């Protein structure tokens, strides 16, 4: 089967005999793996290298002799031991395999021609390779209704199921959505969901990938192609910043499927459903396919590229450099981000460049000493989790953390404003009041707390959490993210500054967008140069570029504020939608109203794009070549599989062409050359040249030592207003954002918006689940049904960004550290 054997380091060798050959294997590893690694592949259905073995299918029977004579044993359940003698092809083994396959096929329908798995089916392949060749079954087979929908994305055909327990094990063991089970007994055993309780898991697509037959099929791929039509290339998912390794599979220049690749340091072959199915957006009818320019009558008209580029070059070249700003770039490749950084800083000469929209983390988090996912999940380690619900924002990181906590004795201390999916796996947890994270971080570092607690956290809870940190075996690692869009990101930096006092601490910045880290490292942040250097300490880029800005520019919120004041004449939106995402809607509106020329480079007509004067269509995931940097700082290749629609181009190609039109002499005019130019000037990126990335399947880590972390001016502690609830604005995986909202099968999966309040506040207001509540802030109000949750601390209101029918980001203001809202009965 397609799974790679789990990499293993032989530290405690034992010698066993496999088919007459003496081989050295790791003591205690499973025989099935040991044999595979030593060129004796044993057929299997139920065994998966990333899940606990169960010995369900008996396909892996081999003869094992441990001194008491050879006996047939399932090799996926037998740990290796010294002097084992194993026969994998003897007559008894072949007979057993014949028998197992004949039984498996007894009730298996002859669906191969209409089955999505046909052509890449382990049951087909192993029947051909190891089967009896002929069936003696003449009786009627078992019949079920087919297929049944077990979730909006996954269909189940019970006739085809061979009861291998892979999907059910995945649901209960790898994720924590045990929503599919075996029901009934004997030959009536079937996989099914509990009635009315669908398999709505963020990871349901993985079961389709691991099912060894075509029992589970995914609606987005169902009947779209046969395996022999598909062309594949290995790439990296950029939907979030975990950077899972994937195969992009297409047929006739249309992306049809994405599967996970087992990258040991990252995703272990798993993907979330957003990463797996959001490619549908690339096939969307809404894609921008040709350049647009605002005509005399004020509407956007299609124009030729040359005309559009001339207009952009003119807007960039004629403006005073300090009145040019670039927002966005965290969805691009490293090379595109570098090309835009070089265009903005090295050609135009402005430092008003920010890859994020004030909804992420400041670039300073990448100056903290870095930890990899593997280091965070080190068996026996201790993790301080400060950030958003990982299942909602960084799904596969959640799987890794859950595995670490459940199976590798990792102790997690959660510091989040509400409970998260990680709460059941955490050793301790505290819920600081939004805006006061730093005080809690200080108390945790100090290990003690005043009797009346800190920032709404009781002294007992703080002491319990500090005790877990204190008992850490080795240095603590911190996962550092932004849990709350309604809280200033400065609060997170202040907390990081406090946590830096922990001995040997290292940080994993839990940024959300696909390539925030790569874009910042390529120079797309104010005051930064490519490679992490500072503007004031010019890291030699003045020798490469024709100019280097002299003054440190503004960040996204600063740019929007300057624009609202009329100080920005040309604003470039590089896949950025400030009207939807900037945590100050009123400011974004005023800014876009006053900017002279807005240039949007995007794949979809977002609200901000529709306000632009020139729109350039951009290629998106699966269409661009280059590399991406995940949250750990692992640079890996993204490869193109299909051609972009219409005349859409990669972001870097637009930047290079604009630079030429602005008269710059810039020799790097290909992705390879851009990468190598970026690496040549950035010592911290050593080892990530194009050639080195091509050679590394699982990516290359950049230098994570960090240094020069400057948290800036601490945020003031906001006053508590006891009549208000403090807002927590978080994100969910299924939102109505650009990608998911435009993916046919994913659109409509987002939850109905609610306002989450604590049990105590619900009692005070006299409301229960579903009661309509008005959430009133200084800038607006909205009416939403209540959701009463024990996971929300008293005094907190929890809303979710970008769900259909609610727009809570309008409540926020850029100058507030936290946002207080009144919640009343409607």
């Amino acid at each position, binding site marked *: 089967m397609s799974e790679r054997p789990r990499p293993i380091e032989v530290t405690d060798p034992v010698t066993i005999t496999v088919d007459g050959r003496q081989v050295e294997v790791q003591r205690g590893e499973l025989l099935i793996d040991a044999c595979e690694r030593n060129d004796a592949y044993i057929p299997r259905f139920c065994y998966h290298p990333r899940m606990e073995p169960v010995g369900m299918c008996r396909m892996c029977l081999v003869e094992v002799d441990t001194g008491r004579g050879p006996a047939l044993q399932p090799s996926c359940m037998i740990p290796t031991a010294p002097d084992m003698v194993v026969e994998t092809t003897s007559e008894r083994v072949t007979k057993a395999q014949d028998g197992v396959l004949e039984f498996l096929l007894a009730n298996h329908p002859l669906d191969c021609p209409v089955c999505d798995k046909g052509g890449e089916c382990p049951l087909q392949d192993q029947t051909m390779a190891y089967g009896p060749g002929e069936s003696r079954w003449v009786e009627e087979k078992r019949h079920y209704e087919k297929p049944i929908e077990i979730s909006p994305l996954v269909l189940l055909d019970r006739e085809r199921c061979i009861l291998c327990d892979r999907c059910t094990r995945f649901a209960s063991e790898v994720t924590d959505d045990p929503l599919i089970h075996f029901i009934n007994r004997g030959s009536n055993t079937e996989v099914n969901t509990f009635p009315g309780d669908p398999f709505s898991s963020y990871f349901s697509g993985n079961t389709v990938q691991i099912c060894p037959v075509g029992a589970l099929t995914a609606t987005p791929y169902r009947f779209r192609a*046969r395996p022999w039509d598909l062309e594949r290339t290995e790439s990296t998912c950029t939907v979030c910043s975990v950077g899972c390794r994937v195969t992009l599979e297409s047929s006739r220049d249309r992306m049809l499927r994405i599967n996970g690749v087992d990258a040991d340091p990252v995703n272990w072959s798993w993907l979330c459903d957003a990463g797996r199915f959001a490619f549908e957006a690339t096939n969307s009818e809404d894609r921008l396919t040709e350049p647009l320019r605002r005509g005399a009558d004020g509407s956007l008209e299609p124009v030729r590229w040359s005309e559009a580029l001339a207009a952009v070059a003119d807007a960039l070249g004629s403006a005073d450099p300090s009145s040019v700003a670039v927002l966005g770039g965290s969805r691009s490749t490293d090379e595109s981000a570098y090309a835009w950084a070089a265009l903005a800083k090295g050609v135009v000469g402005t430092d008003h460049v920010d890859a994020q929209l004030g909804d992420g983390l400041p670039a300073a988090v990448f100056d903290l000493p870095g930890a990899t996912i593997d280091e965070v999940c080190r068996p026996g380690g201790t993790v301080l989790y400060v950030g958003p619900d990982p299942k909602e924002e960084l799904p596969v990181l959640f799987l890794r953390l859950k595995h670490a906590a459940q199976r590798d004795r990792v102790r997690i201390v959660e510091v989040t404003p509400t409970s998260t999916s990680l709460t059941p796996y955490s050793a301790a947890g505290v819920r600081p009041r939004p805006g006061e994270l730093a005080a809690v971080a200080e108390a945790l570092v100090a290990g003690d707390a005043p009797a009346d607690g800190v920032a709404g956290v009781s002294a007992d809870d703080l002491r319990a959490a500090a005790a877990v940190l204190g008992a850490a075996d080795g240095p603590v690692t911190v996962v550092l993210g932004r849990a709350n869009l309604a809280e200033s990101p400065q609060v997170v930096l202040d907390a990081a500054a406090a946590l830096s006092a922990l001995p040997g601490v290292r940080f994993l910045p839990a940024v959300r967008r696909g390539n925030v880290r790569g874009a910042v490292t390529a120079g797309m942040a104010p005051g930064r140069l490519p490679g992490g250097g500072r503007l004031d300490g010019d890291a030699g880029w003045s020798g490469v570029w024709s100019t280097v800005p002299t003054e440190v520019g503004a960040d996204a919120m600063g740019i929007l504020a300057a624009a609202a004041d009329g100080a920005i004449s040309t604003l470039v939106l590089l896949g950025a939608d400030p009207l939807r995402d900037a945590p100050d809607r009123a400011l974004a509106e005023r800014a876009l109203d006053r900017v002279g020329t807005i240039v949007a480079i995007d794949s979809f007509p977002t609200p901000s794009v529709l306000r632009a004067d020139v729109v350039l269509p951009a290629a998106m995931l699966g269409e661009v070549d280059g590399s991406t940097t995940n949250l750990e700082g692992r640079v890996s290749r993204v490869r193109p599989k299909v051609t972009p629609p219409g005349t859409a181009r990669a972001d870097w190609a637009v930047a290079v062409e604009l630079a030429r039109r602005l008269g710059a002499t810039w020799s790097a005019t290909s992705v390879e050359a851009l990468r190598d130019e970026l690496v040549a000037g950035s010592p911290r990126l050593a080892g990530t040249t194009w050639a080195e990335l091509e050679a590394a399947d699982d990516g290359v880590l950049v230098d994570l030592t960090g240094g020069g972390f400057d948290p800036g001016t601490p945020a003031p502690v906001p006053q508590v207003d006891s009549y208000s609830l403090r807002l927590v604005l978080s994100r969910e995986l299924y939102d109505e954002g650009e990608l998911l909202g435009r993916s046919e099968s994913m659109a409509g999966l987002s939850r109905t918006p609610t306002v989450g309040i604590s049990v105590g506040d619900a009692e005070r207001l006299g409301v229960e689940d579903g009661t309509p509540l008005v959430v009133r802030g200084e800038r607006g109000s909205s009416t939403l049904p209540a959701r009463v949750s024990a996971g929300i601390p008293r005094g907190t209101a929890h809303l979710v960004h970008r769900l259909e029918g609610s727009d809570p980001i309008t409540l926020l203001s850029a100058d507030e550290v936290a946002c207080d809202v009144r919640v009343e009965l409607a």
Partner: protein
Amino acid sequence: MGYLDGFAVTFRKWFGTRSDTGRRITVQYPEETRPKPPRFHGRHVLNRYEDGMEKCIGCELCAGVCPARCIYVRGADNDPEDPRSPGERYGFVYEINYLRCIHCDLCVEACPTEAITETKLFEFAFTNRSDAIYTKSELLVGDDGRPQQLPWEHWGDGFDPAEDTSGWMRATAPSGDASFEGVVAWSGELGYGVRSPEGGQTLEQETDDDHDDGHHDDHHGAGH
């Protein structure tokens, strides 16, 4: 006599066409046509069941096996309320490019439902490439089971089922049903039905005559 031997052949044949075997070989085509051999390979049809359902299930096995890569098939989900074919899947797109087809009949052999078969219709001449690509609506037989005549096809005296339906004979057991193993069967075509085995192709000969290439590979997998 050297080179004159060659002329002898020419002259013999010249007279031979009239008198050699007592029958004339040259006919006044296209007014007159000669009978087609029983296994003649002409253009394809997509067949239907007696109830009008399409036989094609969009499995792409024909496209996968085609050595000329001239078939393009895509499947789609049947609407359970109004299915096109029995089962979950039907052929949503079906195209054959006759500028590339070599009429090898491997597609016919691969088809699990006998949906694609070849007629003996071969007289078609196009003036552009897109006419050469027969689409599903052109390949699909009508409700009477007869192929549709396309504007650029010459059908002589019309369609004669006995003369113009497939000369194809199935080599593998239909439907994987073990009780049909080794039984010779012609493909069932609506409007013509099935034919009985040709002489010399009985079950006995099938099973004990191993040189009969292609006819013995259905001993595997006939029942699962």
